[in-house]
């Protein structure tokens, strides 16, 4: 290894994010089912998008990685030099994530850069100790505070960290509490604390679930207004979250908290829909609209939480038929709305000032940015 280079432990969870587009709430233990349902590996693409950006600084970085799909193949494709420090079992599991990270620590990694979701973050943080970790967002759920806003932003943060331009902060590793979720309550549970390089805007804030009385009133106002404007005969694709699910409450429909449902004329048309089912809907129904709410303090309206709402779907529904709702509290805490559809042209088309419904017949304008275009401030 060359002296003076920053050491990045680079790790990919190859199955991360596959459950989302087919309507599963995560991929842990469900990879085979996801593949059977037609899911494509997404993490590799996200990893490459990050490495492409990092390759500009390749002379300053010494990559440590695991062999095969857990890192080596992505690095090789991007033409980067690396040192394999771990060989996973033929069918990778969280044991391999932990084994790889232990090897990174033994080799003195300055930073662990991993590609995955909240599940991967839990495994990495569980062993990293005081070594900083940084997530390339590629999972279905990314509520933890270690995820950069986009693969490009992750590259930017990693580089600036190695150049000692950034400080570290302690952040929470959270995941949806499965037990409460099954009882219909969306609540994230704190599992661990981890150190991560920090620059406002570029790192996603831990998702917050607001539940103060006052904010509830606004959710009711928004839901009441939505129940009125949804009388226009269109089919409404309703995204995940507590704000959107209040609409279902007002309509007397039982909605999935983390899933995407379709409602028309006050009736539930499809519960927990997959991307394919949503695209199929467009063949049958003349007017389709989408209602989304930003995810917690991160500000993502597309690309986190509801991967069923894909670039292809958005293009067919039409950007004018995208309705964004948010309580004013939540909106006040996010600097921008962020979109990350995986289709940069579409992200750019979605950017600009967008109307956000914040109450009964009340809206605000909020700047929307393509996450891939976020640069360090």
């Amino acid at each position, binding site marked *: 290894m060359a002296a003076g280079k920053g050491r990045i432990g680079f790790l990919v969870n190859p199955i991360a994010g596959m459950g989302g587009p087919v309507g599963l709430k995560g991929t842990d233990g469900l990879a085979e089912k996801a593949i059977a349902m037609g899911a494509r590996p997404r993490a590799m693409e996200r990893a490459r998008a990050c490495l492409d950006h990092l390759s500009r600084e390749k002379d300053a970085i010494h990559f440590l990685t695991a062999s095969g799909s857990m890192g080596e193949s992505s690095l090789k494709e991007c033409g980067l030099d690396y040192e394999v420090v771990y060989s996973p079992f033929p069918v990778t599991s969280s044991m391999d994530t932990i084994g790889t990270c232990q090897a990174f620590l033994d080799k003195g990694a300055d930073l662990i850069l991993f590609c995955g979701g909240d599940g991967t973050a839990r495994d990495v943080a569980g062993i990293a100790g005081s070594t900083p970790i940084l997530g390339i967002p590629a999972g279905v759920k990314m509520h933890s505070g270690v995820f950069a806003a986009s693969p490009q932003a992750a590259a930017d943060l990693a580089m600036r960290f190695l150049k000692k331009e950034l400080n570290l902060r302690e952040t929470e590793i959270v995941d949806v509490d499965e037990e409460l979720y099954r009882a219909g309550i969306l609540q994230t549970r704190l599992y661990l604390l981890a150190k991560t390089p920090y620059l406002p805007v570029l790192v996603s804030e831990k998702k917050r679930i607001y539940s103060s009385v006052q904010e509830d009133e606004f959710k009711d106002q928004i839901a009441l*207004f939505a129940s009125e404007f949804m009388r226009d005969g269109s089919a409404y694709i309703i995204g995940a979250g507590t704000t959107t699910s209040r609409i279902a409450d007002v309509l007397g429909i039982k909605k999935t908290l983390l899933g995407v449902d379709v409602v028309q004329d006050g009736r539930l048309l499809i519960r927990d829909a997959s991307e394919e089912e949503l695209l199929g809907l467009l063949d049958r129904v003349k007017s389709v609209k989408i209602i989304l709410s930003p995810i917690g303090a991160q500000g993502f309206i597309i690309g986190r939480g509801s991967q069923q709402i894909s670039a292809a779907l958005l293009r067919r529904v039409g950007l004018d038929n995208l309705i964004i709702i948010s309580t004013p509290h939540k909106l006040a805490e996010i600097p921008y709305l962020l979109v990350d559809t995986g289709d940069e042209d579409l992200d750019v088309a979605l950017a600009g000032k967008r109307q956000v419904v*914040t109450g009964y017949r*009340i*809206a*605000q*304008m909020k700047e929307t940015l393509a996450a891939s275009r976020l640069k360090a401030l």
Partner: protein
Amino acid sequence: MKIKYLLDEEEIPKKWYNVAADMPTPLKPPLNPGTLKPLTAQDMEAIFPKALIQQEMSTERWIDIPEEVREILKLWRPTPLYRAASLEKALKTPAKIYYKYEGVSPAGSHKPNTAIPQAYYNMKEGIERLATETGAGQWGSALSLATCLFGLQCTVYMVRSSFDSKPYRKSAMRVWGAECLSSPSDRTNFGRQIREKMPDTPGSLGIAISEAVEDAASHDNTNYSLGSVLNHVLLHQTIEGQELKKQFDMTEDYPDVMFGCCGGGSNFPGMVFPFIPDKLKDKKDLRMVACEPTACPTLTEGLFAYDYGDTAGMAPVIMMYTLGHDFIPPGIHAGGLRYHGDAPLLSNLVHDGLIEATALQQTEVFEAATLFARTEGIIPAPESAHAIKPAIDEALNCRKTGEEKVIFISLSGHGHFDLSSYDAYNDGKLVDYVYPAELVKQSLAKLPKP
């Protein structure tokens, strides 16, 4: 260059101008909120003095101003007309900009123009106390001043968001001997209901009106007083426009376009109504533009329909532009413009195409107000600043076209009680609200028709 155009006290008008006499389309009658039949004089006697009811229903073109009222108006009237020479210079515009400043009144706005006659007529008919509502606090201050000058008591229901953000308004009302309550209050049945249902509501003019009407209707010695919307309020405010016509004669200019802010309607109609005959009879090419917030765009996005004047449905049902009496506008900093409806006289003229309307975002309004303060010196009330922004745009457009248009701004009041709002603007904390008109239209599309 001459800057100030001042009239002598003797030139304070001796009559009010009633635009109802010249309206191309007559007003539709207000309805009793209980029976939905046309409102009778008796219906109104529970809360208004007879003299004001007569004025409310009158179609006489000219109505005498009592001498006792003129004597008090002399404290600050006639108000000055200014040439905005510094602003013109900053904008490098060939246009001429004028503004008439009502902030010289003791209460700091145009509102005493109607508060004084209203208190006077109530005093003459033996009323002991007036109950009213206030948004930004301008009207509450004006009525507190007026009641104090005529020896009446005064109870002011002040919209909660303003009550909290403008504590010194309350202090001023107290100095003038009035009682100022945060609305919804625990003083009325309706206030208590709202507090129970919506404990964190910012309040609204609609709610405060309901409280004041309930207070007046349930006490024999108490009448209700309103600072905008009603015909007699607009009538009293025409004193402004009549002065302005004389002042424009002194300048030897005539306005091409007049801008004024508009909540429920009082300053703007008062300033422009005396020019309506010029437009109708002399075919003058004059634009009159009502300026409202995008958060509460009654004239630009509302329906022209019969609706309740208040939230509880106790006030008369009137034909006007409305966003719906159940609409509670967001807590913008121009509290005085947060009203769901608009004056019937003004609505009618907008509907007939004689008056235009435009809507503005609050950050652009504060930006314009800041430029105005840094050139003309006066810190405008956020409400008044809604008229400044489009006037600046018009002047900048003249820079492009080379036109020497005469632009008029109705500057209804100063912003000395609104400095916390200016702080919020300077700290980058203002939120720009919009009215989701398309979605509202969508929600009304399939409603059952009555």
